[in-house]
């Protein structure tokens, strides 16, 4: 009966998204509470799915009782379960973060819950067209959330994201259409069986190309990343934390699904050029994203370009398509979500307490906000791939996969990506801890009575509830609660702890890998 958890994962947040709007009509500000309860339920449901998959099950739920391939299937397996767990955990964490961090409007939480539902849908659907619909739900909610910041530029960034994101989704649906006219089915497992034998047919090749380019646009792989830095930079800090951790992640997950479940390894053997094209695309993204991140001065923009680089790594792992590399891709996908979410959250706290938004603003903040800066340092080093951390684990498996497959360029690029990541993280650390005290421009304390977040010494949580103040310009300096610091520290702890969880990931993904690499 555990398969009932799958439709609930999608239905609960989408239905609950109505609650904040209703409470608006009645004049309450209950949005935060609705979001908190819903995401807590999601964590419970995700735990059920994760436990079942960890026990070796493959959960399948035919929606409405129509059997596949006629109906839509929801699938929980070794590839989707870690992503579902990531989405649920990050959603709960960001809601906790938003309690003081804002925005506090009810409408924000409606869009937020829709986004949770959309992300869950992309991760567990077993049907290609259904995946397109959930991608668009995710997209629509994300555009609205990016524009939810009241600053002028967020609307421009959101519109740019909308136009490019829609193009990506349209490319994906054209690819789905080509696959559909070649086979007459939309179910992923059924498609993979019917595609076998016609891999080199022109519609099938075109279908693969359209789908990868469309999803690559959504995942912000270089050179299709141009929407992403603006969207991350001009969205409000809470929104950036959430979308950086999850939205591109599910697009990269969708790439993995398309490559591994729909087209399978036999396709790569029949059309090796397709594999090389994806690998080239991904490795160029790793290097270009890394170089662009190094030259940025604004923190959020630097972290945004860093995502371009990391997603290149993930896509390369899935295109390598060896058991080690795929495991590494899944681990790095989860790890990147946690690390990048944590980094953006830490940057949000530093921006709120010190108004620090550029690398230079970070001068000697390591001594003024030791806890948050320490968290930032730990997460940054994890992103570089210093053990013990999930960042190391992911990169290690990808590198091992590349070496075992004999694809040396990718192995070298993994190494270079580590160097590039070190280059921009080290710049941050140098500013945080070793900046020349005299040269450090005195960062203006925006409001002298704003509590400084240095680890639980603030008593601000009581009067800074969601009812206080209205979600005006979220860019102004606000109070920071110890709860926000706690969530960020927790992210860092989880990132380090998961560095020891290699056997857990291996058990989780094992059954899925067994199916793919049989």
């Amino acid at each position, binding site marked *: 009966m555990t398969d009932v958890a799958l439709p609930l994962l999608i239905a609960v947040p989408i239905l609950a998204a109505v609650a904040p709007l209703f409470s608006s009509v009645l004049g309450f500000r209950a949005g935060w509470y609705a979001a908190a309860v819903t995401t807590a339920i999601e964590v419970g449901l995700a735990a059920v799915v994760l436990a079942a998959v960890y026990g070796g099950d493959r959960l399948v739920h035919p929606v409405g009782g129509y059997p596949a391939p006629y109906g839509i299937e929801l699938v929980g397996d070794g590839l989707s379960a870690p992503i579902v767990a990531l989405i649920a955990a990050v959603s709960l964490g960001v809601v906790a973060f938003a309690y003081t961090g804002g925005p506090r409007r009810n409408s924000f939480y409606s869009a937020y819950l829709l986004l949770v539902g959309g992300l869950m849908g992309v991760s567990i659907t077993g049907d290609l067209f259904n995946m397109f619909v959930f991608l*668009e739900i995710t997209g629509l909610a994300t*555009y*609205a959330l990016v524009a939810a910041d009241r600053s*002028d530029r967020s609307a421009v960034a959101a*519109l740019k994201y909308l*136009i490019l994101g829609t193009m990506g989704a349209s490319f994906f649906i054209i690819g789905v259409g080509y696959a559909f006219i070649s086979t007459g089915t939309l179910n992923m497992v059924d498609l993979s069986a019917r595609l076998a034998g016609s891999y080199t047919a022109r519609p099938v090749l075109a279908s693969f190309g359209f789908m990868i380019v469309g999803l690559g646009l959504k995942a912000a792989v270089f050179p299709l990343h141009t929407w992403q830095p603006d969207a991350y930079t001009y969205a409000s800090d809470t929104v950036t934390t959430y979308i950086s951790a999850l939205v591109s992640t599910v697009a990269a997950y969708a790439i993995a699904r398309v490559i591994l479940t729909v087209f399978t390894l036999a396709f790569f053997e029949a059309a090796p050029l397709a594999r090389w094209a994806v690998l080239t695309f991904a490795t160029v993204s790793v290097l270009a994203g890394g170089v662009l991140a190094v030259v940025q001065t604004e923190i959020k923009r630097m972290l945004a370009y860093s995502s371009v680089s990391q997603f290149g790594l993930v896509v390369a792992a899935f295109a390598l398509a060896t058991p080690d590399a795929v495991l590494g891709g899944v681990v790095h996908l989860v790890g990147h979500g946690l690390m990048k979410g944590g980094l953006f959250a830490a940057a949000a706290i530093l921006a709120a307490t010190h108004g620090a938004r550029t690398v230079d603003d970070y001068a000697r903040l390591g001594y003024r906000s030791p806890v948050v800066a320490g968290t930032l340092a730990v997460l940054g080093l994890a992103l570089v791939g210093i053990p013990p951390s999930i960042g190391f684990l992911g990169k290690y498996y990808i590198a091992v996969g590349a070496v075992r497959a004999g694809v040396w360029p990718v192995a070298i690029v993994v190494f270079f990506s580590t160097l590039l990541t070190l280059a921009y993280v080290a710049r941050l650390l140098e500013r945080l801890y070793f900046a020349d005290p005299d040269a450090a421009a005195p960062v203006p304390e925006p409001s002298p009575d704003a509590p400084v977040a240095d680890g639980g010494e603030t008593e601000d949580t009581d009067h800074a509830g969601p009812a206080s103040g209205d979600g005006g310009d979220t860019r102004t300096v606000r109070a920071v609660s110890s709860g926000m610091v706690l969530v960020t520290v927790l992210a860092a702890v989880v990132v380090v702890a998961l560095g020891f969880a290699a056997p857990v990931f291996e058990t989780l993904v094992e059954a899925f890998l067994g199916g793919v690499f049989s």
Partner: protein
Amino acid sequence: MIELLATRWAYATFVFVMVTGLYMMIASPNLVKKVIGLNLFQSAVFLFFVASAYVAGGSPAIVPSEGGGGPYVSPLPHVIVLTAIVVGVSLTAVALALIVRIYREYGTLDESVLREVTDD
């Protein structure tokens, strides 16, 4: 080539409309025209799906109770297009809402002017 156009004209139209929409999105500096281009692009995709379902002399897929009555037009692409139309309408609505806000804040819909204003 001529034969292709004569027998596969629906697909040729799909490609033509799609590329036109794509070009509008890239080349037009006006934000509203970009959204129109987006709509054109999406309509081309709808046309592709509907064309792929067409069967010469086919009837709607409503099977009489005694069976037979074929050949039928495949109903699945039509369902897909219906859903995609709904998605497209919501996207257009969000895009236009954003454009209204941009116009209110910057007083322009021209992309190059907008870039100048925001790159200060």
